[in-house]
């Protein structure tokens, strides 16, 4: 009964979404206040219905109601409660439910918090949001019904993919989807702005909290996914340029570009058209990211051809959202107000360069991801595009961006002076030169690429520090005055500084862990030991046992290091008998500056076990850096300038008396 209520609420939500899409749009074009005002309650109602439906679905998972097909296929009575809850979004149907929940949540938030928006803009934005909700709900109900029943009811379920039974992955999708779906708001705003023919600084300011929070969510989501890959897959790698990873990286790249170009609109009233285009494309990439992964077309053309219903539906949906947006853009963008001019060397100019490189980087990732698909379709030749391609193209494209990232914030708006900016950055320049020199002293054979990477990382980090010191008036006034100014720098400045510093930390982590990683792969017997990165690993032996829903083989390894207390690590392998699959659970000892990473491999059946041991210097900085970047976003979000100058709602009578223009 409950399940049917959930199903019914979902269908109802779809109908509400349709009303939310059509009525306010019509209302805005005939300038009917009453019709436009329908958008807010509709958005709230749609969210309420989807939330109810989601709650019912989650309840079915928690109580293991195997009469629901989705629960049967993705759960098991012996599964720990945490994963019964997070298993809700572990399947295709469940993740679509999470997606639409987020989508309607954002719509509801705009309806609830967007009181200060002009009515026509708010109604149109919510209408577009309703349209997106309608499309997704139709997709769910028509092709991926989570409430499908099963009869006769099976005694037990098939269990969730064991790789997903992991805390890192359990919370990865909500963050990622928060990010993807957050960009739906910027999309809806952009479309509404195109319909109205106006962008402007005020509108950019309204959109900023949405795009910033979406970006933060996406950043955290990607970092979590990468961290998960690092500790679960057992090679010590953290990014594989896998299509599935790229799918989440593409909207991130465009979203980053969008944040920066929206800042130009907000501060200088320039780049309006480009920002609107980016908003459309960023959400387009989010859709491609989620849905193409879901359709299976990325993994194999053949799996797509076997069950094309979902895939075709998805392609049509994406084509409508992106194509419709671009069509409207082509028709209306020429009518948008022209931006204020600026010199090539200016803060705007640096941000344009950043946008160019991020967009070109995104296009490169897109091409690398989809090229094998295109090539197979038009020539029949199966082709591989591996990490080598991305390292050879994407990395050099983004490197000048890192150089510019430090210079840009030091340049003046409109017209800057490069020489003066570089003079101000002299300390960073010296550091970027000294650091690799120092590395060379200790390591004569250091590869040039690694040295360049070190220089870049130091440049990014020191550049931020130099700029902060400069903005506080360091060395130009007494120290206490500097300190006071330093503490009272605007939050927006702190946000930028934290995020950019995070990028430097991230680069340091990538470069050092890639260039100076050590690896030992040996067959170990009880009592054997091996040396890695100045540590002695003594293999004590392997014990076996049964825990919850899996069987475990656990190795005991004592790590000794001169001058430190010995510690014991337990890398394991787990066998999930219901799901019939095996996972590795690596043992990682970290001190923040490097990870000792152990993974247990196969046994030869004669007491010998393959042990993979890595020492990954600075690898934790990759995730520190990403988290710092996200924190920077949050700090920026808290800047009170964002909330200032929001006009107080006017008396309704006064509003009603005026004509509502479009």
């Amino acid at each position, binding site marked *: 009964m409950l399940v049917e209520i959930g199903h019914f609420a979902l269908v109802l939500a779809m109908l509400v979404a349709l009303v939310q899409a059509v009525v306010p749009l019509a209302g805005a074009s005939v300038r009917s206040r009453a019709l436009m005002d329908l958008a807010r309650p509709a958005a709230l109602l749609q969210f309420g219905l989807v939330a109810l439906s989601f709650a019912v679905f989650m309840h079915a998972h928690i109580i293991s109601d195997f009469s629901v097909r989705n629960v049967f296929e993705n759960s098991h009575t012996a599964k720990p409660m945490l994963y019964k809850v997070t298993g809700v979004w572990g399947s295709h149907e469940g*993740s679509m439910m999470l997606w639409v929940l987020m989508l309607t949540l954002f719509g509801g938030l705009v309806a609830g918090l967007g009181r200060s928006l002009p*009515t*026509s*803009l708010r109604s149109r934005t919510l209408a577009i949001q309703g349209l997106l909700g309608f499309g997704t709900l139709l997709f769910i109900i028509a092709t991926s019904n989570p409430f499908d029943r099963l009869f006769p009811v099976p005694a037990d379920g098939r269990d969730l993919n064991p790789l997903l039974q992991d805390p890192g*992955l359990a919370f990865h999708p909500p963050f990622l989807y928060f990010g993807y779906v957050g960009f739906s708001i910027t999309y809806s705003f952009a479309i509404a702005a195109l319909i109205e023919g106006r962008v402007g600084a*005020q509108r950019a300011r309204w959109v900023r909290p949405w795009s910033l929070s979406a970006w933060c969510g996406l950043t955290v989501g990607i970092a979590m*996914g990468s961290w998960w*890959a690092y500790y*679960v*897959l*057992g*090679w010590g*790698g953290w990014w594989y340029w*896998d299509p*599935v*990873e790229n*799918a989440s990286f593409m909207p991130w790249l465009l979203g980053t570009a969008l944040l920066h170009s929206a800042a130009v609109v*907000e*501060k*200088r*009233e320039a780049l309006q058209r480009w920002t609107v285009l980016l908003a459309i494309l960023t959400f387009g990439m989010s859709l491609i990211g989620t849905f193409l*992964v879901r359709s299976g077309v990325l993994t194999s053309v053949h799996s797509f051809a076997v069950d094309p219903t979902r895939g075709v539906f998805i392609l049509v949906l994406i084509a409508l959202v992106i194509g419709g947006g671009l069509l409207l853009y082509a028709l209306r963008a020429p009518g948008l107000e022209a931006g*204020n*001019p*600026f*010199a*090539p060397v200016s803060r705007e*100019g640096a941000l344009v360069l950043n946008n*160019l*490189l991020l*967009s*070109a980087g995104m*296009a*490169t990732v897109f*091409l690398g991801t989809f*090229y094998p698909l295109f*090539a197979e379709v038009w*020539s029949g*030749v*199966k*082709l*591989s595009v*591996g990490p*080598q391609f991305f390292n050879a*193209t994407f990395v050099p*494209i983004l490197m000048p961006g890192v150089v510019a990232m430090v210079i840009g914030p030091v340049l003046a*708006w409109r017209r800057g002076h490069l020489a003066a900016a570089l003079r101000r950055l002299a300390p960073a320049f010296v550091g970027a030169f000294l650091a690799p020199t120092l590395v060379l002293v200790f390591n004569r054979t250091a590869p040039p690429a690694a040295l360049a990477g070190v220089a870049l990382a130091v440049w990014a980090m020191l550049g931020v520090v130099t700029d902060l010191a400069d903005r506080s008036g360091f060395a130009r006034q007494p120290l206490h005055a500097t300190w006071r100014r330093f503490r009272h720098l605007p939050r927006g400045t702190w946000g930028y500084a934290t995020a950019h510093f995070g990028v430097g930390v991230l680069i340091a982590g990538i470069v050092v862990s890639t260039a100076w990683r050590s690896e030992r*792969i*040996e067959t170990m017997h009880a009592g054997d030991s091996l040396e890695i990165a100045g540590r002695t690993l003594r293999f004590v032996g392997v014990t076996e046992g049964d825990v919850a829903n899996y069987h475990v083989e656990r190795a005991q390894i004592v790590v000794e290091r001169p001058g430190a207390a010995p510690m014991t690590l337990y890398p394991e392998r787990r066998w999930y008998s219901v799901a019939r699959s*095996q*996972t*590795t659970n690596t043992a990682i000892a970290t001190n923040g500056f490097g990870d000792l990473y152990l*993974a247990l*491999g*196969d046994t030869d059946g004669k007491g010998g076990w*393959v042990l*993979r041991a890595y020492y990954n210097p600075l690898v934790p900085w990759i995730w520190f850096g990403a988290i710092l970047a996200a924190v920077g976003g949050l700090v920026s979000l808290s800047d009170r300038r964002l909330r200032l*100058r929001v006009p107080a709602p*006017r008396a309704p009578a*006064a509003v009603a008396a005026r004509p509502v223009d479009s």
Partner: protein
Amino acid sequence: MVLRLLIAAVLLVPIAVSSVHAVEPSERLADPALEARARALSKELRCLVCQNQSIDESNADLAHDLRQLLRQRLVAGDTDQQVLDYLTARYGVFVLLDPPFEPLTWILWLTPPVLVIGGGGLLLLRARRRRPDPAVPDLTGDESVRAALLLDEPR
């Protein structure tokens, strides 16, 4: 038996194989220089039956066979390029993770530099046409927000 878990069907993470053995100690060559070349090469070769892994990372039987095959070729005196050519002849260009520059991949390899150079050039041209007039001070963001509020709302 290989357990290929189609993570792609589930979430945004790479494909995982069940257990870690990949390069096995027993496969290793005695000559460290040759072994280093073998490792480098095996990172460039795709495990044909896996989702998206090099033979260096895969524990599939085929990957094991390919690792042994390439070591045999190296011991027999092949250069790196000869090994790659040999494997390409047997398995097609699909086996190469680093796509070679040939007519089929021209678009793939040339698009990124064309985008950066072409895009940069266009932007520079545009910037030259629309220089700010130093005599005319324009509004700051805050000023234009205030102006917009005066002109704009309520709508």
